[in-house]
């Protein structure tokens, strides 16, 4: 293994790409979109009659018209209100569906793409980058689409049409109102420029604070055991203070921005009042008309504030959108970092197959059924510049053979397991399973890999199992569970429907491994690669787990990274790795006879096994205080 790799984040789309992607997503929904906009424009437009009608009312009073005229105006006011409400409601219902459909499509694309990325690619991007795209970015965009976008659209319509409304009364009044614009423009520009960095820093600080809290709560027992409560609390507290400071800075920028908006409101309102004063004085417009203009403008305070303060939300959503589109752009069929020439298979699969199997979900090298032969030819792999993790390994595993990989940490056995499963692509040499190269195998159900990551999905037992075999019947699920000795499920109150995970039944690592093995049995691959990391006592009955693993590998080619030596003992062949290369290979008996590394390990292991003769440790020191044998009872 090499030094820490620099994270290769997933791409972020450019503005152009983002717009194109949005255009593509709205395709087929534009008719409804246009309808929504027309309805909403109608709603905002009809609302504009309100100040005008109020002005008319003022004039009717000023000129002493009969009461019935005033009643007519009031009736019109109500009618306009009804139209505004109705059009706004109808337009909203259409718009909401369009927006939510687009967003749902986008987030589903993104998650599907992320899930289909090669694990090494997703890991290179860093789990936080990946998770934040499918959670935080999706939420930011959804929220903006849900609340901010309709509000901004409504505010923008109101502003545009109000200015038009004022201009209809008298263009000079509109010009006076326009005095506000330079102040709004300047204040907004200043705010957007200065706030971007602060809000970004604030979100980072909040994320760091959140991470400190999560780790502290999840690791509370560790914290208590080591007595570092004070340090952890101090860390959370300090990160909280950093977030508060940034929040205060952001508030300072925001309130200053609002100060500019207030100034703009004052300037615009005063402009209308002064111009209105002149125009009324010269009898160009009536008092009612000037009043209407002032009321128009006063009505605009709220939508302008809403529009300009939403800029930040929209900006954030825009960033999130670019990150989502960037991921969605990695189409599901992006080739892995190796040329797709691997389609041709150098080793033709043998014609015979014994078991009837369902057609593979993804195209395999040949139409014929591949067998479970595994061939490694001079395989080279390194995680980055530096030492090779696997260096020139050649190995042939026959169909149905069970091979155990033994070696110390960093000897390359897990890397070799990942190469065989197709999760990693060799830098040099060739790894062929049933004749197919890794590039073709990544989605092929010919190989299953059970890794050290023990992850129980937050779903029912049945849904956890069906991930590898979506069409499995309940009977098949039970059969698989029985095969791997996962009898605990039948004791659960809800059986297969029992919810697992953080909000349900929290399985220990060993029990989770039984589930993982049941998934393999259900998936029924030709080759099983087991790199599970549960040694004795890690949470499962080792005896039971060994039997479960035997069941999962029965009738298949098996490659097992041995974490327990009993696994090596029961394998057909043991391969000992050292520094990424083969050190010893042969059956248990052969390796014992070689008296090499394997034999040494075995001796130490068997010496301490219950029921085996115990040897005194060679360098046992003078004994410390001894305990008295206790008399039972």
């Amino acid at each position, binding site marked *: 293994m*090499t030094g820490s790799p620099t994270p290769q984040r997933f791409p972020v789309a450019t503005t152009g790409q983002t717009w194109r992607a949005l255009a593509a997503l709205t395709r087929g929904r534009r008719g409804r979109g246009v309808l929504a906009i027309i309805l909403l424009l109608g709603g905002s437009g009809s609302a504009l009659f309100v100040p005008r009608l*109020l002005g008319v009312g003022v004039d009717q009073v000023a000129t002493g018209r009969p009461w019935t005229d005033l009643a007519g105006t009031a009736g019109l006011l109500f009618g306009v209100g009804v139209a505004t409400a109705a059009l706004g409601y109808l337009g909203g219902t259409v718009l909401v569906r369009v927006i939510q459909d687009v967003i749902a499509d986008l987030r589903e694309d993104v998650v599907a793409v992320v899930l289909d990325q090669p694990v090494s690619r997703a890991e290179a991007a860093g789990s936080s980058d990946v998770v934040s795209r*499918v959670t935080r970015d999706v939420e930011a965009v959804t929220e903006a689409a849900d609340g901010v976008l309709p509000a901004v659209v409504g505010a923008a319509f109101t502003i545009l049409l109000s200015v038009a409304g004022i201009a209809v009364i008298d263009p000079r009044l509109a010009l006076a109102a326009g005095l506000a614009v330079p102040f709004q423009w300047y204040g907004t520009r200043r705010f957007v420029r200065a706030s971007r960095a602060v809000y970004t820093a604030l979100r980072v600080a909040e994320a760091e604070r959140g991470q400190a809290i999560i*780790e*502290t709560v999840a690791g509370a027992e560790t914290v208590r055991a080591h007595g570092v409560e004070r340090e952890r609390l101090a860390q959370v507290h300090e990160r909280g203070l950093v977030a508060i400071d940034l929040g205060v800075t952001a508030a300072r920028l925001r309130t200053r921005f609002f100060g500019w908006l207030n100034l703009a409101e004052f300037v615009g309102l*005063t402009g209308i009042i002064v111009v209105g004063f002149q125009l009324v004085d010269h009898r160009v417009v009536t008092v009612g008309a000037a009043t209407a203009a002032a009321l128009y403008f006063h009505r605009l305070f709220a939508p302008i504030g809403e529009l300009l303060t939403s800029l930040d939300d929209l900006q954030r959503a825009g960033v999130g959108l670019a990150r989502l589109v960037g991921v969605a752009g990695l189409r599901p069929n992006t080739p892995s970092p190796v040329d797709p020439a691997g389609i041709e298979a150098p080793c033709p699969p043998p014609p015979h197959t014994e078991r009837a199997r369902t057609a593979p979900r993804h195209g395999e090298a040949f139409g014929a059924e591949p067998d479970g032969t595994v061939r490694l030819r001079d395989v080279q792999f390194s995680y980055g510049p530096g030492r090779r993790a696997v260096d020139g390994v050649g190995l042939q595993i026959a169909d149905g053979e069970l091979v155990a990989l033994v070696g110390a940490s960093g000897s390359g056995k897990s890397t070799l397991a990942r190469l065989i499963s197709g999760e990693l692509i060799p830098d040099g040499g060739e790894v062929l399973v049933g004749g197919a190269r890794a590039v073709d195998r990544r989605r092929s159900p010919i190989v299953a890999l059970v890794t050290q990551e023990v992850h129980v999905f*937050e779903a029912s037992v049945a849904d956890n199992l069906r991930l590898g075999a979506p069409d499995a019947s309940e009977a098949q699920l039970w059969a698989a569970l029985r095969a791997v000795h996962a009898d605990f499920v039948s004791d659960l109150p809800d059986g297969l429907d029992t919810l697992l995970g953080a909000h349900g039944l929290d399985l220990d690592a060993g029990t989770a491994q039984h589930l993982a093995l049941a998934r393999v049995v259900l998936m029924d691959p030709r080759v099983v690669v087991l790199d599970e990391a549960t040694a004795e006592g890690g949470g499962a009955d080792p005896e039971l787990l060994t039997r479960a693993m035997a069941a999962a590998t029965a009738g298949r080619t098996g490659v097992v990274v041995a974490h327990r030596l009993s696994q090596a003992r029961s394998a057909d062949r043991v391969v000992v790795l050292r520094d990424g290369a083969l050190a010893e290979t042969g059956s248990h008996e052969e390796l014992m006879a070689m008296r090499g590394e394997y034999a040494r390990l075995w001796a130490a292991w068997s010496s301490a096994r219950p029921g085996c003769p115990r040897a005194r440790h060679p360098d046992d020191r003078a004994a410390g205080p001894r305990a008295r044998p206790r*008399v039972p009872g």
Partner: protein
Amino acid sequence: MRSSDSVAAPAAEARAVRSAPSAPEPVVAPMRRALTGSGRGPRLALATLAAIGHEAGEAGVPILIGVIVDRAIVTGDPGQLLLWVGVLAVDFLILSFTYRWSARMMVTIYGHAENDLRNVTLQRVLHPRGLRTRRSVGDLLSVTTSDTYRVAGVSWSVVQQAATATAIVVAALALLRISPGLGLAVLGGTAVVLLAMHAVSRPLEARGLAEQRAAGRASAVAADLVAGLRVLHGIRGQEAAARRYRVASADARSGAVRAALAMLRYTGASSLLAAGFLALLTLGAGSLALRGRITIGELVTVVGLAQYLQGALGHVGTFAANWMHKRASARRLLEVLGDHHAVPGPEAASEAQDRPVAGDEPTAVGRAGAPALRLDWPDEGIDVEVGPGELVGLVPAGPAHARRLADRLALRVPGGPGEIRVSGEDALDLGPRAYRGRVLAVPHDARLFSGTLAENLFGAPLATPAVIAATALEDVLVHAGGWDGPVGEAGRRLSGGQRQRLALARSLASDAQVIVLDEPVSAVDPATELRIATGLREHPAAVLVITGSPLLLSGCHRVVHANRGSGSPEVDR
């Protein structure tokens, strides 16, 4: 004789054994703490005053527009125009600066209130004596983050509602001054509109929450699937997983649409009400103006104020539900803060803060010649002593049994007198804090924290070559890029075995007299495990390792079997 099951029994039994009560210390109500804790009270009062000033200024704008129409535009008097535009300028200055002060003060008050609540909750979670009620990490997290956030928001509610009240009062005074009848009508009408809006908003709240939950579920499904990416790829479950997300996403979509439709209905209904209100008001005020009872400018003011009131009262319908959520959060917070302790002990509530740093602990306490650790557990058939430099293996009946033994040894569950002695002193007399200063009993799933390798040693001097060798840490150092290399969130950049070895190195690097380990190398390969077994044997502290692993046991000086009452003599090795 106590059965082994009783180790997990609630503290009631412990109270019978020990006189030290495990009742909770009195707790300040979370809401009060958020509002007035750390001298926030006066500042909150100032911020509220400023918010009231702001709202009064906002209400002043339509009033002043009316005055300007009356005194300047209708009369055509430029002097009056100048005067009242000047007053308008002052009004804008007031409303702008009071907002600035109020908002800035509020951000600080709210931020510190949230920080405070979070710290108090975390202190309780980390309290040496533990929480009696077992809660999942997810529950505790939601209390420490969401509930504190919501309760801290009470200061915003106070200010917002004070501002709303101001809007109503100022508008009412202005209207009553113009025409008492009209004023009463406007206020009565406003009250009717508010009540109606509140009634309409109630189902809205429920829908909003349902939508949030659906959206949250979709997010959780996505995060869960990504967290299990390796597992998914291992069984080629990418497509099935994507389908599963699509279902959750469709739920979130229909939830969002339903909530938005409810919101639209609410908005529609309230704007209908508002339109009717405005029409009636125009008719009423216009009639009064026609009869010369009020001036044209006053008519403008009335209409302007009605318009302003609708905006200012926009959120009033949600106030009640808002308080309900905050009260529910405060209750959950109080349940954690006021929970009983899991184990008895002499410590006070502020324990977590007052804990002395490592090294302050007296090291040479206890009876001279007493063993570093002595266990006397008749129910397990165990009576064993561990001396300095000794490595003793304790073989459990199974994994669950191992966890129970580890819980007892870490004082995470109440125990009986004389069961555990450290240098001759009863663990119960020492109490969890002092006990843990001498006995480092790390849980099986010892956690790493984001930061560097060095930071994960918790301030212990960098591990000595002996510790590195004992834990076979070389490849971890290479992988992370040295002691200053990052381990990632919860150590995720390391493999399971690497994480375990770093956690082990952290334990060995500590200065505890006694180290208790629970299956510390369950994810480590046999070759490395054998090396670690030898390394542990050489370690100078007294080490008790709970393990069923033959390789690890092969390194032990002595091995005892915990057979749950069947009493088996220990085996010398």
